[in-house]
């Protein structure tokens, strides 16, 4: 039935454009709308993206994207529970954002030139340095993506994956037949039924999928990573104040990891830390929060609620999760990764 929902969303985008009352475009407009509503509308992966966004049997949302939504809600509204999660298939994300059905998409959306410029979207940063890969059954005996000439490939509708795979096969003079599915579930079902030989998606999604398959050992992720997929939270390009709040929420999560501020120590560190960087970050010195229109101790609240970037990663995707994905390029720059927090001063 989700197909109807997706179709509906495309039409919703259209309907919203011809309906009055949602057009708000100036400094602080999105922030005002969220405050008035008392709730952040946050787009996440449909509830089967293990590690990214899942709904557990008690009705609680979990995952990396979910934690990021909560961090923004704490920053803006002071309460991690004031989020309304909008589970979206990939193809509905951009239309939902453009039409105002969500305030921010914390869902994995690759930052590309066209989306940033022509779609009038604004990326707040990158929370995962990902790349496109392939997963296949061990039974087909393929060790490399270069052996895939003539293969049938499952791929997500409307994604950058759909474009990258065309480029990849063309540049290696190979042929393939795409089978386009809307959701991870649909593609995984096609893969398991043998309708396609391989399923291509971002590596993190494939690692997460493999961990949830009935027999993970029967599946292999091919070694080639064929694209760069910088994933990050994205907002409409209409309210610079809101863009800044989202950008700096991501940034302080990473800065907190760099400075060793974590969920447990944060309250205590407000009083005990002598490091001027930590003091600024936690609002002990300066009036940093006010510059964004937030409470001065907003970072303390954010970290107390969700922890720093490293904690969020470990809990959802990394060593404390079922998936056990390595940090890879999404490690701090001091550990050989690409995460590099901007100076909070």
């Amino acid at each position, binding site marked *: *039935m989700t*197909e*109807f929902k*997706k*179709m509906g969303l*495309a*039409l919703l*985008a*259209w309907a*919203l*454009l*011809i*309906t*009055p009352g*949602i*057009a*708000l*475009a100036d400094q602080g407009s999105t922030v005002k709308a969220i405050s008035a509503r008392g709730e952040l509308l946050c787009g996440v992966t449909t509830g089967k993206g293990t590690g990214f966004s899942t709904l557990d049997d008690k009705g609680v949302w979990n995952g990396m994207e979910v934690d990021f939504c909560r961090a923004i809600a704490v920053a803006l509204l002071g309460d991690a529970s004031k989020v309304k999660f909008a589970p979206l298939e*990939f*193809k509905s994300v*951009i*239309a939902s954002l*453009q*039409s105002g059905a969500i305030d921010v998409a914390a869902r994995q959306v690759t930052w590309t030139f*066209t*989306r940033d410029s*022509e*779609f*009038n979207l604004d990326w707040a940063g990158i929370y995962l340095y990902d790349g496109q890969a392939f997963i296949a059954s061990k039974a*087909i005996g393929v060790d490399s993506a270069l052996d*895939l*000439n*003539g*293969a*049938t490939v499952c791929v997500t*509708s*409307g*994604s950058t994956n*759909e*474009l990258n*795979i*065309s*480029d990849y096969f*063309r540049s290696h003079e190979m042929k*393939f*037949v*795409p*089978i*386009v*599915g*809307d959701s991870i579930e*649909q593609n995984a*079902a*096609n893969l398991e*039924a*043998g*309708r396609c*030989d391989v399923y291509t998606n971002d590596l993190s999604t494939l690692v997460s999928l493999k961990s949830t398959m009935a027999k993970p050992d029967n599946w292999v992720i091919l070694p080639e990573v064929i694209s760069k997929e910088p994933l990050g939270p994205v907002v409409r*390009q*209409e309210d610079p104040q809101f863009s800044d709040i989202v950008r700096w929420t991501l940034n302080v999560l990473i800065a907190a990891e760099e400075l060793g501020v974590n969920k447990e120590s944060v309250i205590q560190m407000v009083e005990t830390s002598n490091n001027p960087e930590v003091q600024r970050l936690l609002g002990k010195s300066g009036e940093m929060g006010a510059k964004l229109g937030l409470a001065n101790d907003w970072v303390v609240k954010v970290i107390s609620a969700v922890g720093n970037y490293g904690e969020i990663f470990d809990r959802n995707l990394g060593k404390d999760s079922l998936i056990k994905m390595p940090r890879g390029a999404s490690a701090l720059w001091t550990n050989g990764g690409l995460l590099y927090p901007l100076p909070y001063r």
Partner: protein
Amino acid sequence: MRSVLPPRRRFAWWGSQVATLAVVTALVGLSISNLVQNLDTRNLKLGFDFLNQQAGFEIGFSILPFSAKSTFWDVFVIGLANTLLVTVIGVAAATILGVSVGLARVSANRALSNAALIYVEVFRNLPLLMQILLWYNVVLRALPAPRQAYDFWDALFLSNRGLYFPWFSFNPVFSWSPWIAAILLLACLLAITGYVTSKSALAATVSGLGAIVIGGFVLAAIHPEAIDVSIPRLDGFDFSEGFVVRPELAALVVALSVYNGAFIAELVRGAIEAVGRGQKEAALALGLSRRLAFKLVVFPQCLRILVPPLINQHLNLLKASSLAIAVGYPDLVNVFVGTALNQTGRALEIVSLTMATYLAIGMVISAIGARVNASTRIVER
């Protein structure tokens, strides 16, 4: 009509016309002003230039040539062609199935009419989307992988990637013109003879087409090199050569035909039963056989009742073909409103163009229906 109304009524008539016009104009005006304003505040521009951009993705199934270098306009055309393919096959199959089952329903044969009843009740009461998913996930998924495909005479293969069968193509090197001229001449001659002897357009068409088919076989027998036959063979992951019917297309066509066929069967039964019993009895009393009574008396009258709702059913099938998205068949909605919309971000243009296209196809079907309907009307003398 207005002139015969008394003055007070005339005022009411004009009043209601003006009020309706005012409301419609206000709604349209409001929508357009909102659209302009909202587009402006979002910095979005309208335009169809994007149709010339290179699409950059592949489409899994297409009856027209397509590559990643094609433009978004090509994507639109290919999606439309795929939608029309499903609709045409679906309409033909549903109509044939529905008419046969409808006739079985009114047949005197108890077993036959009960079997038809069961078919109708089962398939018209299950949701269509569920039926599509059922055909796709249960029936077709049970088939083996290409390497273990069912093999019929080393020429026909059936796997979960589809049904593969031999196909032929015309050898372009061969000198075709004298043969084509000869076969067409023969076809025309036979068609004319057929029409003259039987006075029936159907007989003429059949003999004409028959001449072409037989001529083709004779040609193939004398010059086998003129026609290239390609037989499917296993090549790596999948079969190559030959012609393949993909499971997505098969599931969609089967589900649409079976579902709509059940409704058409009921329309046929209703139309036959709506013709007065006395008509049939009178025809029998005049000494016509049961078959002739049905063919000459009952059937022409029931066509008149049948055609308008039948067109409705065909329109339903056209629209329901957009459920293709559930199994990943690349129809217009799937490739254009799905993939192309996301790659370009042009929601308004793409959704409007798609809606206009469905509207246009629907109106063409209605127009054809209206012509058929006019031809079955009672001619009053």
